Structures are given as C-alpha cells and as structure tokens.
C-alpha cells in the first residue's frame, strides 16, 4: 500500500535545477532518493503515472496491462523480441513495479567476459567496486535469501528465505535428485518478515501484476517516499521528448516534455541523467539529435542503440500427476546458478541459470499455444489441467552484438515522436547456449517427476544499448555513467550494461545507480561547471540509505 502523506516540493520551470532525471524507474528512483538526500535540487520526469496502489492496481492478469510500456515499438530481426509487458514498465517505479524481483548479483567473471573468454566486452569497473553497493541495496530493498549463497562471490542474506510453493518444490526436487545445487526461497526482493510498517509477503502469486501488499520491493515504496520527503519532485505522466544541447559549450541545458494533455513544457537543469531503460534511453538520445550531434546525442561512437541484449528466457513446462497449483507463492522463489560460468567442456562461452516461473492462466495458455501448438478443444483440455503443470525458466546469457540495436522507425507515437525499431538476432554462441540450457532444464524437470515436458522460446530482460566502457570509441558512457561526449549528460539504467551475465539485472541496475549517485555527490558542483573528468572512486555512503534500512535482519555471515 502506498500513500504519500507529505506535500511534494514543486520547482518552477524557470528555475535551474541541479539534476533532472528522465524516468523514475529502478535506477531513477534510487538516484532521485540519493541526490535529494544529499541536498541537491532534483526533479524526476516520468512518462507514466504516480501510482496509488490500492486504487490503481488489481489482482488480475488482464487488468494489469497499464503497468507496462504498451506504446508502439517496432520489433524485427531474425529473432524478434516481444516487448511491452515482457520487458518494460511505465509509471513511478518503472520496471521494479512489475518485476518478479529475483535479485541475484552478477558474478565477478561477468565484469571481465572479454578478458576471460574473448567474447563480449569487459566492464570499466570490477565486481569488487560494485560489491559494497550490492550489499547496500540488498539491505535497502531488502533481499530475502538463503543464509549461504554459494555462486559467484559467495555471500549471505540478512533476510531469511521464503517458504516454497509448488513450482519451487519441483525445482528443488529436480535439482537435488541430480545433485545440482539449488538456492531455495530467494534471493528475491520480497519481504519474508515484516519491516517497519511494510507487511511481509502473503504468497498471492501476483508479483508481476504489481504488489498491492507492499511486500515486494519497488523503488515506488523503497526509495521514492524518502526522495519526496527530502525535497525531490516527480512530474508524472510527462513524456520527455527532447534533450536540449548548447553547441557552444557542448553541454546539455534542459529537456522538453509533454504532459498528459499534450502540452509541451521546458525544464532547465545543470545536469541531466537519462534513466529510461534500454529502449527509451537510446530512443531519446537518437531523437535529440542536433547540430554537432547529428547521429544522436552522445553518439560520436555510433554505439547508442547498439549492443542491446536480452536473456534467453525459454520456459520449460512439465506436467505432474499430482496437482502443483503453480499460481500460489511468488513466481520467483528458487534458482540454480550451477551452470553460470564458462565451462571448457561445452562448445560455447558463458552459461545460464534455471529459475522458477509461475505463469497465471492467460500466460500459461499463450505458452501452451506456442509450446504445444494448442488451440480449440486441445487448448481447453490442457487448460483444465492447469493445476498439474509446473514451469521453469532458463535464463541464458546472450552476448552483446553490434547488430542487435535500437534505431528510429519512420512511424511516430501519439506525441509525434519517432518510435523505436528494435532489431534482434541470435548468433552461434547464443544458439548453442540455448540448446544446451534447454536440455538441462528439461533434465531437471524430468528428475522432478514430470511426465510430459514442453518448452516455449522467449526472451527476458533488456539491457545494453548505451553501454559503458573505458574507450569512447566503442562505448557511450564511462564507468560512472557520464557520456563520453557531453560532460553534464549521464545515462544510468539498464542500458549501460556492457554484458548481462545470467542473473536478472534489477539489483545490478540499482546498485549502479547508488554508485553513480555517490560519484555525483562526491564531485559536488564540479559536474555543473567543469568538463574535467575525475575518475577516482567515491567513498561508499551508507548514511544515504532510506531510513529503516540498517539494523534489521540477521547479521550476515559474509
């Protein structure tokens, strides 16, 4: 439940604010909170609504479409991605409103994929630089998980694991029967015990329809309230259409946006952070092309929009003689990362994870349509068996390829802005990985006791398309999210990830946002009046966490 009990500060449009954030989603929410707490004048402009969760959200599949970015995008390529509900949120909280909230960390190897395997790219930062922020965000959300998580950099969780539903039990049974390690009851950013007035999970299974309970973390409930209390402003239902750039100084000066009546406004700002996620961020940069940046803002490297990634998200469904009732309990509650790393015995680089998914009836029906060719009476029959099915998701790392990219389509949206065109193809390594992974998941499903197994090919999670890197010729932003081309323009969201591992990206996106915020705060006003780049790492500011973060939960082992 979300209620805002305090008046929100309002800046006038003529006032030059310090930071303007485009999109108050996973990353935007964290940035807003940190910068406001540090005393900056900060405004978030969000295309979607500011949710009143009790009134706006429903416990219903069809009724939740409003949570997703359902404006037009064109999708193509040999393996076109389905977008909309499958990828993007719209509204304060962004994707964290409808995510399943799986929150594994990336592995140390993810940060040096190129060095290790000669594919993909290296990150400009190492795991160890991000680690303190992982730890911080795991407390701020907080993340519930097992007392010991063995993969990547092994660690523990301060909030205890969740009980299992039917799907989780099948995954645990399948994995343990095969001797595959499995993490039970997390890591997932859902409260397993109440914290303050936030109640714990009630196991209703409607996580990706928005958590009315308030148990699942979204920046709407974890960071935005503190941001507003500290003087940040959010302008909701406002679509940023253009970022303005001053050719003389080579600095950005403000943005124009369209409110819900279609009226255009202009807001001046000393610095701008784009947090619109992997399709809207490059779209906005490309749509903001101007003199001196004819190919799109901050696109001298021609990488804006390129290296878009999605993870292979094949869903493997198994039928059991005993009922499972997979609609109970959060879809996200158990996973294995046993196959995460590159294995020289396989003929491809990198790896995958296996996770629980709990499709509700419509999602299940469409999966059956794809996986089993169901229609007519066959569909009705399979659906009558809904309660006997369990579903696992493959989460496989697809490498960053320059041809997988966001460009501008000729068509325009309701505001007259050119919409995004997304091209996506699979390459050899990706295909081999998916084949191998699919088979592994099927083995686990069989070991759990499934009598019939089918699978649907799909993709999950978008990242990339404005990647960070050390070399301005091959990346859009530096290790702190500052565009190489423009000193007061930042990108901070999923689009800056150079590679994606096979971990769900949300936690990493928020951890990167907290790190960028620490950097901006330690740089102070230098950001506003200097073009010099100081790349020293900022100190970790635990004191900027929202109130109530520290002091609850169990002491961590590590």
């Amino acid at each position, binding site marked *: 439940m979300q209620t805002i009990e305090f008046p929100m500060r309002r800046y006038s449009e003529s006032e030059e604010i310090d930071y303007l954030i485009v999109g108050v989603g996973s990353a935007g929410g964290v940035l807003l909170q940190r910068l406001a707490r540090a005393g900056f004048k900060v405004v978030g402009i969000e295309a979607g609504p500011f949710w009143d969760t*009790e009134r706006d959200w429903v416990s219903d599949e069809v009724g939740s479409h409003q949570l997703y970015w359902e404006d037009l995008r064109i*999708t193509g390529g040999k393996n*076109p991605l389905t977008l909309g*509900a499958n990828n993007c949120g719209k509204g304060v909280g962004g994707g964290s409103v409808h995510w399943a909230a799986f929150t594994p960390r990336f592995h140390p190897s993810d940060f040096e994929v190129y060095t290790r395997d000669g594919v993909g790219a290296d990150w400009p930062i190492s795991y160890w630089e991000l680690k303190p922020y992982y730890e911080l965000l795991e407390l701020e959300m907080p993340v519930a998980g097992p007392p010991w998580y063995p993969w990547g950099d092994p660690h523990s969780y301060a909030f205890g694991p969740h009980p299992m539903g039917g799907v989780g039990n099948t995954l645990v049974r399948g994995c343990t029967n095969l001797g595959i390690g499995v993490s039970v009851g997390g890591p997932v950013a859902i409260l397993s015990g109440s914290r303050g007035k936030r109640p714990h999970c009630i196991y209703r299974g409607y996580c990706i329809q928005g958590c009315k*309970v308030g148990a699942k973390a979204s920046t709407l409930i974890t960071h935005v309230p503190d941001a507003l209390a500290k003087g940040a402003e959010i302008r909701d239902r406002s679509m940023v259409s253009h970022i303005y750039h001053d050719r003389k100084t080579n600095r950005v000066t403000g943005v124009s946006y369209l409110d819900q009546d279609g009226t255009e406004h202009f807001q001046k700002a000393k610095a701008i952070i784009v947090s619109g996620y992997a399709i809207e961020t490059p779209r906005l940069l490309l749509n903001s092309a101007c003199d001196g940046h004819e190919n799109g803002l901050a696109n001298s490297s021609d990488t804006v929009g390129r290296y878009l990634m999605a993870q292979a998200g094949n869903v493997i469904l198994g039928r059991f003689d005993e009922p499972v009732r997979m609609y109970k309990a959060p879809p996200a509650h158990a996973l294995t990362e046993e196959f995460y790393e590159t294995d020289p015995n396989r003929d491809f680089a990198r790896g995958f994870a296996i996770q629980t998914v709990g499709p509700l009836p419509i999602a299940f029906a469409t999966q059956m349509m794809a996986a089993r060719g169901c*229609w007519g*009476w066959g569909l009705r*029959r399979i659906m*009558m*068996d809904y309660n006997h099915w369990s579903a696992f998701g493959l989460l496989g790392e697809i490498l960053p390829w320059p041809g997988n990219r966001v460009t501008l389509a000729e068509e325009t949206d309701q505001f007259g802005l050119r919409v995004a065109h997304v091209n996506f193809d699979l390459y050899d390594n990706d295909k081999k990985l998916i084949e191998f992974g699919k088979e592994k998941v099927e083995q686990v499903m069989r070991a759990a006791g499934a009598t019939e197994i089918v699978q649907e090919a799909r993709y999950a999670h978008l990242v990339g398309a404005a990647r960070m890197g050390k070399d301005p010729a091959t990346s859009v932003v530096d290790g702190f999210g500052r565009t190489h081309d423009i000193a007061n323009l930042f990108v901070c969201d999923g689009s800056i990830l150079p590679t994606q591992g096979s971990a769900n990206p949300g936690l990493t996106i928020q951890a990167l946002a907290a790190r960028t915020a620490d950097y901006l705060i330690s740089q102070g006003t230098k950001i506003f009046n200097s073009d010099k780049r100081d790349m020293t790492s900022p100190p970790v500011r635990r004191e900027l966490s929202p109130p109530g973060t520290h002091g609850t939960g169990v002491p961590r082992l590590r």
Partner: protein
Amino acid sequence: MDTLHDPSSDGRETRRPADPKTGKSLPPLGQPGYYPGFSTLNQQKFWDAATRERVLRRVNDVPPIRFFNPEEARLMKMLAAHIVPQDDRQPSRRIPIVPRIDERLHQGRIPGYRFSTMPPDGNAYRLGFEAIEKMAKQSYGRPFQELSWRAQDELLKSIHDAEPKEGAEEIWKQMPVHRYWALLVQDCVEAYYAHPWAWDEIGFGGPAYPRAYIRLEHGEPEPWEVKERRYEWMAPADSVSDPKGPDVAAHSEHPAHGQGGTH
C-alpha cells in the same frame, strides 16, 4: 441471449465433447472442468475493491461491437468458436470473446509492439478475414460460413500448421501466417481466460488480495477451493483441434503479449 456472444447458437449434438466409453455427447454444463461447484465469484467479498470492480465489470458489461462491421463480426464469431469452442457450456454460461477483441481494436490498444513484418493489428484482422474467405472459396468453392464444421476446422488447422490451404498466397506474403495465427489465438485466449467462469473451470484461485493463500505446497486446495474430480471426455468427432500428443506449431517461437509469468 445476445447472439453476438453466443459463439454457436445452434449447439448441435455432434459439436459437443463425448464420453469416450459410451461415445455419447455429454450434456452442456453450467461449468465444465474438474472442479464442480468451485466459484471464484463467490469469494468476491475477500477481494479488494478495485479488483472486484474490474472483474465484475468484465462479467456484467459486455462492450458493443464497434470495430468490426456486422459481417466481420459474424465471421470473427465463427473463428472464435473454433479457437475456443464452448459447446460444452450452457448457452447462458458462454464467455463473450469477440466483443473483447473488438473493444481492444476499437480503442487501438496494442501490447506495446508490432512485428516489423506485420501490419497494424486492425489491418491484420481484416487481411485475415479476406485470406480465410479466399482459402474457403479456392479449396471448397464456398464461403467460410457455409462450410461444414469439420471443413472450417481443417481450414483453420492449415493456418495453425503454417501451411495454409491455397487461395491467399498474396496475403500471406504481406503477413506471416504464423504471426497471424498467434495474434488470433492470443486474443481469443486472453478474452476467455480473463473470465471468472474460466477460472472456475480450470480450478484457478482468482484474485488473491487481501486474502491470499495458506496452502502453498503439494497442490493442496485452500479451504474455499475444491479438490479436483476428473472425468474423461473426448473432443467432438468433427473437430481436429485436439490431437493425442503435443502438436507443436511450425514456430515454437511465438509472440506472446502476456508477460508470460517470466522472471
């Protein structure tokens, strides 16, 4: 009974599922499925107000047809009756499908994307109607509506298999047949399984807030849910949509506009 949301007003015997032992048609039921007596709507006092309002509106208010013209609506109704047949349901307990699709197209709601190879959804529907009529003419010499139930089913199965019967090659060049089929099935499925009567049929618990679940494991029913009581049934003899094993479509990589319960 509004004829528009009665997918098969004549409800012939042979179109109903049969008992495999006797071969006799099963009588139409108020609620088919293995959970007799289970009613999600009976639990509505345990739902939150916003959800209750939304679901009840779905049950009580059937939107008028605004996008399709009467002829298109009639054809669409027949397609829906094949894609999600409801002849086992009593006429008063059939779930309106076409009005939902019409409403979406009328409002111009899209799932957030369009395949670069596909025309906009409304055009896709119209092209599809045209293609189906052309195929019917070419292969059977009659309009789709006049074909036997079985012939209609077979024609649709050829689209499902992505090996469409002859007659509409030009159209399939503008619109990949498997994408068209997915669009059609997806929309029908989303209309049917969004309805509480369909939840009752499949034993799904329905909305779950503020009251959720207490029995998470072993597929145990909640105190207010019912245990499964299976019965055998076979699809009507003149339908081809219920093969014995999985019948994987040509493209297992389908567009799905639900979020797929994914991670």
